[in-house]
């Protein structure tokens, strides 16, 4: 997979490039807006990570220009500005996701992987999601594990659906709040953990292999354990 990083802070850029390479990405890096714009226009990428404040040309202008050419590459905006309005402005400007500095690398990786995946899935219309012996019917809105019906609440259904769509990838708590609950806010307590443990009780408790795992310092992952 190919990623373009447009970031002027050398340390953040190095860290990003190093981390992405370790996660099997091919990474191009541009240190200013104009250079980044030229690279975005001449190459095809699976994902772009764009800092909002850049010398030469600011991040939002780059995204607008890229979108104007019909290029639908997923874009994650990085910014030191964390206000809700800044975020809304960034997403309206054509960004697919927004991450405020400082961010943890796992959060960034989780988000760009989810973006890439969503971009690929957009074409397909699945009606049944499967992870190991866990099965979700999106039309009938039923969940089964090993053929056994599992009764879930509507919100739990959405939570599980999101986890299943991102199976095998780390999903952070903030991502869950944003994508499943659809609110962007900072909870004072890890209220998500309570919902995860309830979901876990339903899908994992009576079965031998746990699917829903906690990743320390990062979030959760739904996967078939080896």
């Amino acid at each position, binding site marked *: 997979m190919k990623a373009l990083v447009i970031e002027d802070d050398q340390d953040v850029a190095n860290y990003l490039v190093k981390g992405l390479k370790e996660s099997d990405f091919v990474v191009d890096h541009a240190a200013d807006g104009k250079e980044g714009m030229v690279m975005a226009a001449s190459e095809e990428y699976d994902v772009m990570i764009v800092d909002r404040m850049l010398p030469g040309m600011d991040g939002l202008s780059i995204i607008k220009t890229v979108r104007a050419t019909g290029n639908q590459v997923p874009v994650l905006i990085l910014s030191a500005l964390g206000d809700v309005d800044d975020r809304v402005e960034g997403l309206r400007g054509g960004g697919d996701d927004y991450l405020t500095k400082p961010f*943890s690398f796992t959060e960034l990786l989780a988000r760009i992987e989810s973006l890439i995946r969503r971009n690929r899935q957009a074409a397909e219309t699945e009606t049944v999601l499967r992870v190991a012996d866990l099965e979700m019917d999106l039309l009938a809105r039923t969940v089964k594990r090993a053929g056994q019906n599992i009764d879930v609440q509507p919100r739990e259904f959405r939570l599980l659906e999101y986890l299943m769509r991102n199976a095998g990838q780390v999903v952070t708590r903030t991502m869950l709040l944003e994508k499943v609950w659809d609110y962007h806010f900072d909870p004072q307590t890890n209220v998500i953990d309570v919902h995860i443990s309830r979901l876990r009780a339903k899908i994992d408790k009576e079965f031998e292999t746990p699917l829903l795992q906690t990743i320390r310092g990062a979030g959760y992952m739904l996967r078939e354990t080896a």
Partner: protein
Amino acid sequence: MKLLSQLRTSSFQLALLYMVVFATSVFLLLAFIYWRTAGFMAAQTDETIEAEIAGLAEQYRGRGVNGLITIIRERVARDPNAKSIYLLTTDDFLKLAGNIGSWPQNARADSGWINFTLDESVGWMGPQRLARARIFEVQGGLRLLVGRDVDELTNLKRVIEAAINWGMGITLALALLGGFLMSRGTTRRIEVINNTSRRIMNGHLSLRIPTRGTDDDFDQLAENLNRMLDRIVYLMEGIRHVSDSIAHDLRTPLTRLRNQLEHTLMSVDNDEAREQAGRAVAEADQLLSTFNALLRIARLETRGNTADMKSVSLDELVTDACELYEALAEDKEQNFEQDLEPGVLIEGDRDLLFQMVSNLIDNAIKYTPERGTIGVSVRKEGAEAIFEVRDSGIGVPDDEKEQVFQRFYRVGKSRSLPGNGLGLSLVSAVAEIHQGQIILSDTYSDRSPPGLTVTVRMPAFTGVLKRIRAAQAELPAQAPEAGTSESSEAG
């Protein structure tokens, strides 16, 4: 109401004062004119009478009493309609000559000036006319009266008096009207300044007071106020710039610190080292979240309420928050009650409101012991949308209720509980943006612990409702209209 407030303005009162001065001047001027005119006419009458007397005296000196009688008869005969009045009588008021029938009743004195009315008996003069005369005792026991009919003059005087009265009245009316109109012009310009200032205070900092370009005193005032606003905006941008700089300059090294810790966490094999690195990452996250919350509050407080405000359904938002937090309450076996009135709209920022609501519910759950009671309600009271969280927790002592909104403030017993002391500061900043008011009170007045009730009152959003009502009014069916009026009464 509007008229009353107009009358209370200082510019109208100034105009009123000017009106009093002006009316007094006009009154004095008219009084002077009246005094001069009436005085002149009276003097003229007296002079004419004196001249007549002089003529008669000459005749009397030359020809005696008979000559006097003759000349009086001649004069009366020459012009029976003249304004002159003559009467010569004996000592006991028997008429010898003259053009009036009898001596005036009120003039029994021997000599001097008199005013009297002419009787109908004087055929040619018609009823009740005013006259002025001088009376004498002529040598030989005769009495003489020489006068003039001043009825027309009196009428003229009355006309002048009436004109003066009307003139005063019209002057007063015009002055009042003029004062009202003039002050209204001024009041309107002041009103423009007031309205603009109010909107600026509500957060529309980019607004400026309009000027006419005439460079008059109001324009100068407006320009000075505008310059002051520019200065304020400049200073506020300074604050914003500083906080942005802090965000940019301090959060970046913090990122690096956290990322290095994270890298350590991922790369070490030793379980104990991982445990420690994990704790360090959590500590760094806590530090960063405190730092973020501080910056967020600072930014919310300086930005005003111009942000991304949309119509938000408060009851739906609180339903979502309850759904998210109910699980937390259930884990503490707390009784979680919800009373959410549907259709309560406010104008606001959805994410910020959710932050506020969730912070308050989170606090209630955190500070209420196991098996306690939490109550969340949303309702509309008149033009206000109300969000309320009740709990049966430790509560906040009365003397600390004001202080809990300060940054880093923790109520005595809560210091041991997790949290950064910024939750309520953030709540307060969000409420401020939504023109909301936060009231803290005890849930139970007769119980210990008293619990805490937090009530947030925000202006309800009515724009959509108005549109719905307008749409319903256009429908021919009556049912929806009836429904609307009922619901408006209920609200």
